[in-house]
């Protein structure tokens, strides 16, 4: 029975840092350059080259470590991790091993209300590898090409403790971590492009047991949904195996998203001995307290704090506050709109439903490209309030604003969408509608109250939605015979 087991999950996140240059050389990190256009002898692993630490990358990592309540080690070291693969030009990766940048932090995660602290084991720096491009598939390719543009891009590895207890909690942890990285501006958080990657270690143990079971590493999960499904699948697989009296093999398994299962990599994997040793080309890195203190002053308001503030300051439901604060850019957008149009819940509704439906994402880039600036959204909402347009028309105007980038007034004026609130002009329409819908009027007389709604709708239709519904309502009630 699967309920006899407790799921134990630890997560490893690799986050690409948004520095302009690479970890150990001056090459640009921009995504999408033509192959090998952003390389130099250092990131190509030429004979004789030496690494030089990117100070900005270390600062990004320290700021992240502070946001995760980590202890920052006063001295840390880089180490070489050895394995052979053509995407890695030196056949070793400069990483950190025994002396990481930071250790012992935590991140608060809430699933179904009660927040829990997930421990952070360590945070360290390393360099990314290049990319292989196969002619066709890996198995059938006649040749493979190497692109070193990504080689040497700074990576931060954040390893959680085995504190996560469910797939939901795992995705909640990842969302919270991603939100922090976005707030700090150190990573763009793009999972599909691989700038935010996650591997998971998962094991099961009899509920109540203190000892860990045999863990399995899951790779190849490039979305939150994949993480959730992969971990749910794997927990079920292990539970079934354990229930059948099988032993769990310590191995790496790949999540096959299309097929919905995990598959063992063991046939292709070699038992790796990474032969770590301290990188002799770099002197130990001293992190002075003064530097850390200075960086601490640059930390922004972090997601959890902002979320709480949204609830207390704007009176928003926790659900709204959480969604609005997932991305710093989105939260900034929201607050800018509320400043112009101080009805927080209405703004929240529009941002969460209308705006997020149109935007390709909630990250900085998506918000930056948003064709409706916050003050235009605020103006649109003000037009509803002052009776210029109806709420229904406002949704159409919003769509047009999004397509064209124009402001609400321009669209409303040009398209003649101003609401008709003139009782004289509407009276004629009401008369016409009553004449054309005799059966509905009969129904009304018989006491069928729904008829009123139908007749309002007919008036709205005739005026192409421009009639002020309150006035139409009033006019109809005046003109309809009293129900018998």
């Amino acid at each position, binding site marked *: 029975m699967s309920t006899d087991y407790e799921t134990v999950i630890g997560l490893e996140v690799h986050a690409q840092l948004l520095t302009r240059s690479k970890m150990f050389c001056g090459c640009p990190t921009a995504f999408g350059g033509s192959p090998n256009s952003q390389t130099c002898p250092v990131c190509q692993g*030429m004979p004789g080259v*030496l690494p030089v630490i990117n100070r900005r990358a270390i600062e990004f990592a320290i700021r992240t470590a502070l946001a995760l309540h980590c202890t920052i080690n006063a001295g840390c070291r880089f180490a070489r991790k050895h394995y052979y693969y053509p995407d890695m030009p030196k056949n070793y990766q400069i990483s950190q091993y025994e002396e990481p940048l930071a250790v012992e932090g935590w991140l608060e995660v809430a699933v179904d209300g009660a927040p829990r602290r997930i421990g952070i084991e360590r945070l360290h720096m390393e360099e990314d590898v290049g990319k292989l491009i196969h002619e066709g598939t890996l198995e059938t390719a006649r040749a493979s090409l*190497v692109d070193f543009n990504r080689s040497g891009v700074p990576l931060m590895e954040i390893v959680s403790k085995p504190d996560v207890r469910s797939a939901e909690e795992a995705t909640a942890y990842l969302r919270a971590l991603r939100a922090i990285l976005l707030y700090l501006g150190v990573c763009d958080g793009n999972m599909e492009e691989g700038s935010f990657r996650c591997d998971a270690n998962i094991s099961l143990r009899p509920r109540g047991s203190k000892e860990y079971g045999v863990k399995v590493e899951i790779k190849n999960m490039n979305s939150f949904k994949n993480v959730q499904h992969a971990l749910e699948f794997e927990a079920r697989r292990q539970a079934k195996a354990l229930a059948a009296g099988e032993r769990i093999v310590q191995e790496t398994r790949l999540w096959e998203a299309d097929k919905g299962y995990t598959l063992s990599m063991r046939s292709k994997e070699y038992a790796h001995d990474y*032969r770590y040793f301290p990188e002799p080309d770099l002197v130990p890195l001293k992190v002075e307290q003064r530097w850390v203190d200075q960086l601490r002053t640059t930390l922004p308001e972090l997601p959890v704090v902002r979320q709480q503030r949204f609830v207390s300051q704007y009176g928003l439901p926790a659900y709204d506050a959480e969604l609005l604060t997932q991305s710093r850019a989105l939260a900034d957008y929201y607050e800018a709109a509320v400043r112009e149009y101080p009805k927080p819940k209405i703004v929240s509704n529009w941002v969460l439903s209308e705006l997020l439906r149109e935007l390709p994402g909630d990250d900085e880039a998506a918000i930056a490209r948003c064709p409706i600036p916050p003050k235009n959204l605020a103006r649109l909402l003000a037009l509803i309030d002052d009776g210029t347009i109806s709420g229904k028309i406002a949704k159409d105007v919003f769509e047009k604003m999004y397509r064209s980038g124009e402001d609400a007034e321009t669209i409303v004026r040009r398209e003649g969408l101003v609401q008709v609130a003139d009782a004289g002009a509407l009276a004629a329409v009401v008369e016409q509608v009553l004449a054309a819908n005799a059966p509905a009027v009969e129904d009304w007389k018989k006491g069928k109250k729904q008829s009123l709604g139908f007749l309002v709708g007919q008036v709205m239709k005739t005026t192409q939605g421009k009639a002020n519904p309150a006035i139409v309502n009033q006019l109809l009630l005046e003109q309809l015979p009293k129900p018998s």
Partner: protein
Amino acid sequence: MPTIAELGARYRSGETTPTQVVESYLQRIETLDPQVRAYLTLTRESALARAEATEKRLKAGKPLGPLDGVPLAIKDVICTKGVRTTCSSKILENFVPPYDATVMVRLNAAGAVMLGKTNMDEFAMGSSTENSAFFPTRNPWDLARVPGGSSGGSAAAVAAGLAAGALGSDTGGSIRQPAAFCGTVGVKPTYGRVSRYGLVAFASSLDQIGPFAADVRGAALLLQAIAGHDPLDSTSTDIPVPDYPAALGQGIQGLRVGIPSEYVIEGMDPEVGKAVSAAIEALKGLGAKTEKVSLPTTNYALAAYYLIAPAEASSNLARYDGVKYGYRAAGGKDLIQMYGRTRAEGFGPEVKRRIMLGTYALSAGYYEAYYGKAQRVRTLVRRDFQQAFERVDVLACPTAPNVAFKLGEKEDPLQMYLCDVFTIPVNLAGLPGLSLPCGFTQSGLPIGLQLIGKPFDESTLLSAAYAYEQATPWHARAPALP
């Protein structure tokens, strides 16, 4: 042959021109190098072009730097933009670096003229230059003998007058030992004094580039040009570089010279011992005070070195895999086979031996017992020197326990490793060391005296060596080449 300082003086006086000098060196190389075989690659055209550039500066009345128009030989482990850099290995036989090592940038800026790239033990692993994948280099004093190694090509070029000076690299004695075998001056600077950027790495925590010259002043001039902090090398040190030539001629009155008692080993050539003792007496005669010091960890230094250096080498040489540059074996069915064949065919036996040793020393379960322990020995070796330098200014000892041996004479790798027993501790401690001629054997082979200094105190080494050199006749001798 004129010294480096003499060349500059002659250019300025108009006695000769850089073009004439470079042409005469190229001529001499053409005549003599087929016997010595110091060079792997000659850069005739660019050398003449650079000589001409110096000449133009001279004619334009611009002040000449001390290395302007000075013809140099560069060990083939130092990257030279557009000029093939092989490390005497088949795996890099056709490798042409797209960049210059920092030392080359500095030499070029100083107006120096590279004549070519010199032969060496493959990837600087060896003490005889017999480990070159291409051919061995001969000792100009006796062509049947080795020039030492691994910088044997550079040492032989200077000794045979095929270059006015040279650069080599020293990981465990690779400048000092061939300097001793060839009767030249060779300096291994303090670790961090000279940038390693562009030096093809053998053992990163031990490697240093340094100069060869026929006399101490020449070595000082070369060191002056290449020393100093380099932002591209995080292990280079930001300590001001003193004026080395200015330190020469200050005399050594009162200099405290330590004589390490452990630097006498069984099987040492008695002629070496005698010459070094005489040299120490000569230093005394020049006003130095000598005293015996003890470096008790010396006996373990060689063993520690042969764990640390191969460990780092196994890592540094991992990049030669046939994927990006250099040799790739044909016919591999898959990636693993391509890697395996490339490295099996591309590396020579000594390189393979050290990759195996180093891979083993870093393996999980063995790391602490081998690499970890060797690092602790290294700390003790460094402490020995620190304690000695509380009492003395320099240490004096033989550079090598023997003189140049015959080609093929040392087939046992362990016998070969013993050649560096007096030089290796200096690398482990990161100290500066210098070798200069202090006599000849009965059969006319040069003997080297090693002076070891405090960190970043190359000035004292050079000044002591200069005082000794000026008081003795050895540097004036030249090999009689047919």
